């Protein structure tokens, strides 16, 4: 678990408690319950250990507070959800309510019969048959013999195990065991039902069946329900109220919708308290995000994404095409400048074969030349063959044959130099970049500039070591400026001094963290400081740091649509808070967001929050009216590129 998880309450919990006054009878009243486990004593299993611990005076120490002063009330008819990350004390809470555990401090009073669905099937004996187990488990759950006899058929029907009733349970599948357990536990109509993650067992059909049964109990019998689940959607769907417990502390309590919303964005995510507060207030901001403000681009894979981006850029048919490996980031970044020079899209491929979607795109682009980046180990000869087959007849395959990224970057530079002369196009920029391998995020942010200005990227070999050949290329008279990504440890000042001696001025670009660097680079490329750079941040392409591969080939697209990159880690609240403040700081310069990646990268709320930031910044700058209340909430889940990406389509038409 990350260390810096916030546990302070969000919102006023006491007020929530006081506000919960209504006439319905209280079914469960949890009053300042704390649970302290003595960690040391849990491990003492023999007299010897006990004596040793006693001698060391360790016996009374090592307390672990699983719950710390948690209070809430559940009223009749409530469906109450308990949310929290692993180890936050949810299950301990349920066990206290179920009466299995006694709280160390505080009280927990229950008003009515309880059916605990906690880790079902605890009393099953696998040697016994299902029939015998139904009676045994029923007895342990407190049913009478008569009750079980009366409802026996019901249980068997629900569990769908008629044919196997007299078979020992050890021969059952785990799904069947779970079904019987659930059927026994829910055959009774209790006043309070406790559900702990049980719905995650069994297959899809059975899960639905379980949920139907629980819904039936809620609707028809007015049963009070407590649910613990990791599944946010489930809680939101079933519950009306919820509490969020983090590391034993109450973080938030209130309507299930509100708590789930906050949990989805903040739950289990790291970040400072300030960042969290910023994100939380943005989450709760009532700003409506207009549909056209936010869009998404996502392919089925990194290969598909690269293709979609290439389609978007509308490269001319019969031109050049660059094929890079989707597994290696460095050559892709080096290829951005080449891509700009040759006006060639960068497509990605697997090592062993060319993905179908890429082959189709090659066929539709019908290039006369395909530049394959890397040797046999990077992209196999099958890939080259397949690319050749996909392209039109007479397409030339030019392989830059090198299996090693540092050398490959230099060879790409050489290739570009030659190609510019042969093709008669404008060659490399006077600015070069040398980077450390870890500066991928910086390079992605720079990629529109790389494409636009045909800037080559070189890499260092290892800490402080720069290949002679690379140094020779940089100092060989082609460049006047050098942008250095990396600190002194990576790229030593001595090298920069040597460059200066050859007439190459260098500048170091260092950010406090990846997001700060991201901002600095965006400032750099929009400032016009770099000669000829005319980039804007009208559109921000938001890329998740968890999946940079989607951005490997996006330089051309960003450059052609006046876009800049915004790197964000949706799991890291500091990053999200930085993104929000960045957008706000730009005071209305950002007019559109494009999220790169599917919903596994950015959730609906992640998108909505940044969308709100953009909208608020626009409103503040007087560029949008606030009367957006009647607009639909941003519905941005779409993999269909053309139907959603309205803003970038506009910019394209302008070109």
């Amino acid at each position, binding site marked *: 678990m990350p260390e810096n998880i916030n546990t302070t309450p969000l919102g006023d919990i006491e007020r929530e408690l006081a506000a919960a006054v209504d006439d319905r009878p209280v079914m469960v009243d949890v009053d300042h319950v704390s649970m302290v486990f003595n960690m040391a004593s849990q491990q003492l299993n023999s007299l010897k250990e006990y004596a040793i611990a006693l001698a060391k005076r360790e016996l009374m120490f090592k307390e672990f507070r699983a719950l710390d002063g948690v209070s809430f009330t559940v009223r009749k008819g409530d469906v109450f959800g308990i949310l929290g990350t692993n180890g936050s004390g949810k299950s301990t809470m349920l066990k206290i309510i179920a009466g299995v555990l006694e709280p160390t401090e505080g009280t927990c009073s229950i008003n009515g019969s309880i059916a*605990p669905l906690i880790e079902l099937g605890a009393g099953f004996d696998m040697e016994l048959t299902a029939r015998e187990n139904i009676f045994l488990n029923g007895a342990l759950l407190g049913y009478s013999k008569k009750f079980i006899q009366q409802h026996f058929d019901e249980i068997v029907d629900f569990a769908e195990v008629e044919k196997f009733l007299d078979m020992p349970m050890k021969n059952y599948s785990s799904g069947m065991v779970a079904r019987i357990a659930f059927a026994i536990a829910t055959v009774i109509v209790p006043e309070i039902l406790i559900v702990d993650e049980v719905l995650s067992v069994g297959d899809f059909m059975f899960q639905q069946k379980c949920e139907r049964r629980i819904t039936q109990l809620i609707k028809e019998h007015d049963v009070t329900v407590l649910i613990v689940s990791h599944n946010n959607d489930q809680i939101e769907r079933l519950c009306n109220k919820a509490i969020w417990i983090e590391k034993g502390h109450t973080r938030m309590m209130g309507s299930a919708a509100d708590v789930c919303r906050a949990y989805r964005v903040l739950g289990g995510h790291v970040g400072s308290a300030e960042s969290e507060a910023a994100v939380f207030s943005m989450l709760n901001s009532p700003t409506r995000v207009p549909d056209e403000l936010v869009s998404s681009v996502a392919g089925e894979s990194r290969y598909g994404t690269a293709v979609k981006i290439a389609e978007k850029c509308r490269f001319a048919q019969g031109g050049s095409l660059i094929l890079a490996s989707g597994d290696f980031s460095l050559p892709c970044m080096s290829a951005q400048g080449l891509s700009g020079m040759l006006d060639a899209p960068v497509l990605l491929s697997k090592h062993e074969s060319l993905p179908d979607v890429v082959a189709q795109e090659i066929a539709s682009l019908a290039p006369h030349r395909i530049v394959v980046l890397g040797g046999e180990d990077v992209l196999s000869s099958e890939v080259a063959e397949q690319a050749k087959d996909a392209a039109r007849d007479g397409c030339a395959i030019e392989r830059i044959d090198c299996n090693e990224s540092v050398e490959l970057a230099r060879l790409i530079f050489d290739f570009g130099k030659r190609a510019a002369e042969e093709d008669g196009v404008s060659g490399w920029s006077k600015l070069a970049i040398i980077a450390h391998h870890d500066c991928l995020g910086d390079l992605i942010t720079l990629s529109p500039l790389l494409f636009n200005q045909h800037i080559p990227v070189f890499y260092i070999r290892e800490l402080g070591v720069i290949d002679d050949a690379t140094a020779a290329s940089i100092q060989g008279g082609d460049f006047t400026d050098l942008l250095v990504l990396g600190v002194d440890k990576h790229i030593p000042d001595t090298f920069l001094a040597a460059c200066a001696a050859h007439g190459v001025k260098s500048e170091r670009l260092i950010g406090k963290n990846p997001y700060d660097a991201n901002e600095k680079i965006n400032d750099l490329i929009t400032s016009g400081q770099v000669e000829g750079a005319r980039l804007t941040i009208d559109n921000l392409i938001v890329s998740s740091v968890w999946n940079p591969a989607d951005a490997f080939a996006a330089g051309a697209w960003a450059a052609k649509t006046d876009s800049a990159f915004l790197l964000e880690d949706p799991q890291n609240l500091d990053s999200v808070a930085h993104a929000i403040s960045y957008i706000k700081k730009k005071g209305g310069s950002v007019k559109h967001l494009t999220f790169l990646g599917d919903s596994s990268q950015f959730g609906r709320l992640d998108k909505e929050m940044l969308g709100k930031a953009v909208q608020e910044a626009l409103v503040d700058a007087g560029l949008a009216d606030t009367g957006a209340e009647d607009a639909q909430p941003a519905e941005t889940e779409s993999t269909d590129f053309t139907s959603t990406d309205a803003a970038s389509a506009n910019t394209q038409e302008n070109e």
Partner: protein
Amino acid sequence: MAQTASTKATLKRNWFTITSLVSKDFKLKYRRSVLGVLWSVLNPLLMMCVLAAVFTNVLKFGDDVQNFPMYLILGNVLFSLMADSTSSAMGSILESAPLIKKVRVSKMIFPLEKVLFTLVNFAISLIAVVIVMLFFRIPPTVNLLAMPILLVFMLLFCAGLGMLLSSLAVFFRDVCHLWGVVITAWTYATPLFYPVGLLPDWMQAAEAFNPMYHYVCYFRDIAMYNTVPGLTENLICLGMAAITFAIGFAVFKATEKKFILYV
């Protein structure tokens, strides 16, 4: 009124749970064995044959006792009731840890169930005693009607020991290892296969403090010596059982809330 009604309902529920568990243990014990329940009869019989052979032919003091095999089987069967029930009750809480952790269930059920289950087996092994009585033509007498009284003493005694051991075993697993040794020592310290007169005087005096000595004597008195134990003897037996039960019950009640943290 409502209070007693709910207590009654709880008791009834717990009784159903206990009987369900006993029937589970019973089924599991004999599942997949050809002779099944018959083993509960055969076992004491075979054990008796071995012991009788050893102590009559090798150690030669079997002859001092009239109907030595009967003497043996009575002591053995009754002592097994104590040994088996306490040993199984001892591990009962630890064994049912998964259950205790997840279901709210009266924890006392587990040691009591083990004692009851052993009692059922004891009842079956009484058939072996009957067979021996038939074989040696020992006529049954009305004294056998005192049998239920002895069983009540034994139940209380074993349940008390079982509860004490089961709660101690939760906190110190050492108890489990130690108890086997204690049982063995106790077996030899109780006149099961030898006449009590064989012991030195001080040990004979010490036997007065051995509850099992009293219970075994009680059993032999009513089953083979055709005598009814006097009031004093009954009171001694009851006292020992009641004290043991009270201690076991008190220790169990005092510690049961902590079980879940240690199992």
